[in-house]
């Protein structure tokens, strides 16, 4: 997220956002992916992502954003840059259904006559 005046106020009155300050993506916090295991859950499930300056803050932010500080949960945070994803463009080849490829299964083949102990 960018925006939001950090220069503050002199009381409780809002201050107009400083005009025409370009957001600086170069200085933006890195993105982290968050995995949560709920108190009765068996595995960590991807819950979402967040920005944080470092891993310690990422865990804290994840607790606020994704667990509401409930008891008995486990959190993993991973820098988004550490995750290697499959290529969505190769979906057709990569994830092609095994249907019609019966030869991949042992039941496709018939045992030759005379073969014992099969």
């Amino acid at each position: 997220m960018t925006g939001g005046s950090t220069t503050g106020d002199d009381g409780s009155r809002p201050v107009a956002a400083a005009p025409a300050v370009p957001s600086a993506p170069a200085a933006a916090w890195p993105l982290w992916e968050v995995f949560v295991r709920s108190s009765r859950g068996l595995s960590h499930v991807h819950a979402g992502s967040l920005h944080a300056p470092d891993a310690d803050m990422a865990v804290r932010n994840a607790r606020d954003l994704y667990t509401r500080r409930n008891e008995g949960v486990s959190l993993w945070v991973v820098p988004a840059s550490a995750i290697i994803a499959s290529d969505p463009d190769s979906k057709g080849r990569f994830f092609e259904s095994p249907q019609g490829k019966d030869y991949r299964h042992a039941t496709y083949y018939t045992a030759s006559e005379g073969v014992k102990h099969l």
Partner: protein
Amino acid sequence: MNSDSATRITPGNALRPEDIAAAGTRADPDVAAYALRLGDDALILAQRLGWWISRAPELEEDVALGNIALDLMGHARSFLTYAGSADGRSEDDLAYWRKETEFRSAHLVEQPNGDFARTIARQLAVSYYSFELYSALQRSADPTLAAIAAKAVKEVDYHRDHSAQWVLRLGLGTDESRRRMIRALDLTWPYVGELFDDDELVVSLDGSAVLPSSLKPAFDSGIAAVLRDAELELPAVQPAPGGGRQGRHSEHLGYLLAEMQVLAREHPGASW
């Protein structure tokens, strides 16, 4: 603690202000005056932090400051409910229908938010102070005060961690963040001394209240550890004149109350 007390603490059954009201315990007038101070500190700081919602430097920080504000609002509601039980006033009566001179909060909590660093400096002081206060107050002879403190101390421990993490990052961050953090400590620390003043009321409540001066050593060493890690020093500043506990406030509280109370006063009896 009495096991059938409405203010007992069990896992998943944390104390709520409604429980305090339903218990029907009437606070002793002096205990009520003490609870009012604690409630006002939490209420005014919650109102201050609420300003940040939608304005924090990052979305994640927006949520964190909002969470802390809501925790403090919960503490305020419990203390004010108990304080009001002495003379039949509700938490809303106390929050929305008192004048500035009737508020008993310390000057520190009414200080302007300033920039993010200034808010963090104020939060650092308040959360470290509150953690020591509630840790000790859990052993209060007054079971309701002890129960409120037992709930609050866990939340304040998180607030302490949040502010300490930010002091580290701002202090060790860019030249600009460090400059702002140093300035924030300069602006904040004159108001810290008032937190530790012992007066007649707290002295007379020996056993029920916590003597503020007794919290100073642990507070000092906790703050010193954070600042050492952040390579910062406490500023040598003159303490500002206090007076919040007597209802003498700085120029900031009137504006804060006007905004906080306007809806309740425009529409008396409205609920939302």
